[in-house]
């Protein structure tokens, strides 16, 4: 043994992982320069667009006489408070998976490595993974804020320091919560709890932040009162013990030249960071090991009585002839062949039993639904058709962006995951083409059910006539067909049969390409349709017609073409 020059375990793990990531990046770069350039262009485009929108919005809001600064400040407080909540959730979920559902962690546990070291590494890894999107989201916003407030250059490095101090706090909280949950709760119970917390939070927020009805009379005579009422419900974001409050106050104070106030909040963030960091980096070894052992020891037999009952019942249903209510339901459309029905039932069951799939979909569309339902409180003021149509197009954009996230996350990896089961599905006489077709149909139907309902609801809340509602429904129909076709097609063209984890399949080259193309398609579609809108001030039937032809061609090119190419590739597929 060589005790003199032993490198620390943390250093060793960091070295191995850096090397792995570097090789992965090199691999991606060497696959296709064009695609790498597209992704880079997309990222830069996102930063620029996001910055431009924030900049314009802040300048617009800042121009309200006497209220501009107040509104911008409140926006910052609110944004950081919401992002703090999201960071807490993402840290919890990512740290839980990284600590307790990770093959590397099990491997490291069998080596002479202290559980503290394993925990420290996994904590750092999880915090980085959970926080990068936050930094990516707020960087353009803070740059825009700096420009609007005409700050000096010191604002930017100071903000970076503050953000680093800030993101570590939800990391600590998420890590301890993950250990506690792993120790006392099984995976399914954990997923259901998380979902329940998410829904309750959503409902509470929807209730708490419910927009109040404002009459035209009030807008004309009592603006301050209205403003006060509108802002009253957002005061929670200025609760002095919220880390997001410390961050927002420090950022605002520095921009105003109040360096002592900034210093105070830097020290507050630092003291919490050091205290929690000291506790988290020193003591978690034993509770972490206990929790890891509990997770490994827990078959799926533990959990809550309700869950246990359900599984108990399922394990006793040994009658091969009975397929349950789903089977009975899908037997009603008699024209569906038996083998197609089998794949359909299997896919629906897998979707239903994978809490993360429908949980994420529910949260994403739930947020959108909460927003759309609240539109009724504003629609009374929306007398100008321009604003009504603008909001309708923005809703269409938001809905399709949500859909694109979900098709990339869940539809794209479908074929790769099926590849693992190719010994049964691929070898069955149904044929892979048919399997892909069934998956595409099912995904599109589910997407349409959700997005179509939301768009109809949006039009209803905006009090639009049924012809216009039909127009937007038709658009979302075409977009759903296209986005699902794109995700399914690219999933076949860029399969990854080595991975079991869908999120890792998506994070590869094909998944990123799918996401980029989906976003470009949505932006292109909204722009084309908005320019050729039949309700524009100088609308002409020819412009509308051209817009629809372009929309149709774009949809065929982005949706149908990759799908056809994918299906064609199946003929030559070698696994």
């Amino acid at each position, binding site marked *: 043994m060589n005790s003199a020059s032993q490198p620390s*375990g943390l250093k060793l793990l960091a070295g191995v992982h850096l090397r792995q990531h570097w090789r992965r990046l090199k691999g991606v770069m060497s696959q296709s320069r064009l695609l790498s350039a597209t992704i880079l262009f997309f990222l830069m485009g996102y930063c620029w667009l996001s910055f431009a929108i924030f900049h314009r919005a802040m300048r617009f809001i800042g121009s309200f006489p006497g209220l501009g600064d107040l509104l911008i400040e409140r926006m910052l407080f609110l944004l950081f408070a919401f992002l703090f909540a999201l960071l807490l959730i993402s840290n919890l979920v990512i740290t839980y998976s990284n600590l307790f559902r990770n093959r590397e962690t099990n491997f490291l546990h069998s080596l*002479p490595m202290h559980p503290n070291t394993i925990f420290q590494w996994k904590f750092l890894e999880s915090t980085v993974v959970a926080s990068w999107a936050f930094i990516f989201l707020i960087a353009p916003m803070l740059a825009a804020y700096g420009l609007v407030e005409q700050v000096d250059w010191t604002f930017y490095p100071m903000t970076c320091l503050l953000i680093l101090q800030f993101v570590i706090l939800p990391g600590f909280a998420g890590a301890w919560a993950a250990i506690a949950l792993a120790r006392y709760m099984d995976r399914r119970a954990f997923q259901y709890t998380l979902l329940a917390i998410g829904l309750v939070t959503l409902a509470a927020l929807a209730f708490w932040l419910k927009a109040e009805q404002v009459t035209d009379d009030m807008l004309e005579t009592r603006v301050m009162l209205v403003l006060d009422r509108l802002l009253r419900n957002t005061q929670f974001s200025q609760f002095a013990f919220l880390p997001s409050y410390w961050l927002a106050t420090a950022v605002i104070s520095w921009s105003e030249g109040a360096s002592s106030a900034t210093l105070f909040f830097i020290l507050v963030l630092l003291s919490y960071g050091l205290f929690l960091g000291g506790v988290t980096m020193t003591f978690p070894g034993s509770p972490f090991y206990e929790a890891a052992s509990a997770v490994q020891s827990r078959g799926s037999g533990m959990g809550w009585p309700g869950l246990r009952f359900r599984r108990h019942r399922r*394990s006793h249903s040994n009658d091969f002839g009975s397929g349950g209510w789903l089977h009975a339901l899908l037997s009603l459309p008699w024209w569906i062949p038996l083998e197609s029905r089998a794949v359909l039932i299997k896919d629906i069951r897998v979707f239903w039993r994978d809490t993360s799939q429908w949980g994420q979909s529910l949260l994403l569309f739930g947020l959108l639904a909460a927003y759309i339902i609240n539109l009724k409180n504003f629609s009374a003021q929306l007398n100008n058709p321009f604003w009504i149509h603008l909001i309708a197009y923005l809703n269409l954009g938001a809905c399709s962006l949500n859909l694109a996230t979900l098709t990339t996350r869940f539809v794209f990896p479908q074929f790769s995951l099926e590849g693992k089961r190719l010994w049964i599905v691929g070898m069955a006489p149904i044929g892979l083409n048919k399997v892909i077709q069934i998956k595409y149909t099912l995904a599109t139907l589910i997407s349409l059910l959700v997005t179509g309902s939301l768009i109809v609801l949006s039009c209803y809340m905006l009090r639009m006539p049924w012809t216009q509602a039909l127009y937007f429904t038709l658009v979302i129909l075409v977009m759903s067909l296209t986005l699902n076709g794109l995700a399914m097609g690219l999933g076949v063209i860029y399969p990854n049969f080595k991975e079991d984890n869908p999120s890792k399949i998506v994070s590869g080259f094909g998944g990123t390409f799918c996401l980029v193309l989906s976003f470009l398609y949505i932006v292109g579609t909204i722009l084309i349709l908005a320019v050729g809108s039949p309700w524009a001030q100088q609308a002409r039937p020819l412009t509308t017609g051209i817009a629809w032809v372009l929309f149709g061609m774009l949809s065929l090119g982005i949706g149908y073409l990759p799908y056809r190419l994918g299906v064609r590739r199946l003929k030559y597929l070698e696994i």
Partner: protein
Amino acid sequence: MIELRGLVKTFGDLRAVDGIDLTIGQGEFFAVLGPNAAGKTTTIKMMVGLIKPTEGSAVVAGYDIQQSPLDARKRLAYVPDFPFLYDKLTPLEFMQFTGQLFNIDPDKVRHQGAELARRFHLDAFLNKSIEGLSHGTRQRVAIASALLHDPEVFVIDEPMVGLDPQHARIVKDILKERSGQGMTVFLSTHQLSVAEELADRIGIIHQGRLVAVGTARELRDQSGRDEALESSFLRLTTESTESSEPEPTQPA
């Protein structure tokens, strides 16, 4: 070298491991057999400290795995049925990483690594990315890396899965050779021929209990009939099922 004392593991109402007492001496090659879900892997996981026993203790190389886990693991090597390897590293880099983790002198890693690579026929793959290697080659990389620090106790779960006959022979020979040099081997397998060929003693686990321990001959002799190990195994596991109380059905 390995002492399991009253080892119990319960999952909810199920006793997956039900009071195993076993002592395995230095240099002994011990094979454990058992039907699926008998409790073999759970026993191994408790032995290497991946999970805590509900009752009892496991002492490896003189150290209680729960009381002194790091001391025990320095002297222990564990290769699961599907070992984790860093996909983007090469076998050479992985072995260097393992060497550093076990604090082995770099010269020794170089020398021993080269020797193990030669013995396991890994020379041609040393600088290839692990992600491109076959299951059998990955298995050999894992076993070679686990042997790098000259463990006193070697625990291996289903080592022959994915190995072709030639490489299976190599793995068997090396494990037997190391056992002869004083390394204690605890091998879990479904292949009765492997156990019969290599093991000094064989244990049969069924429904969480160690229902029989002995040499292959002793196990055959227990029946009083001149029968193959397979027949003894089947009889022991069947008898044990019939004689035991029916298990309460567990949620799947």
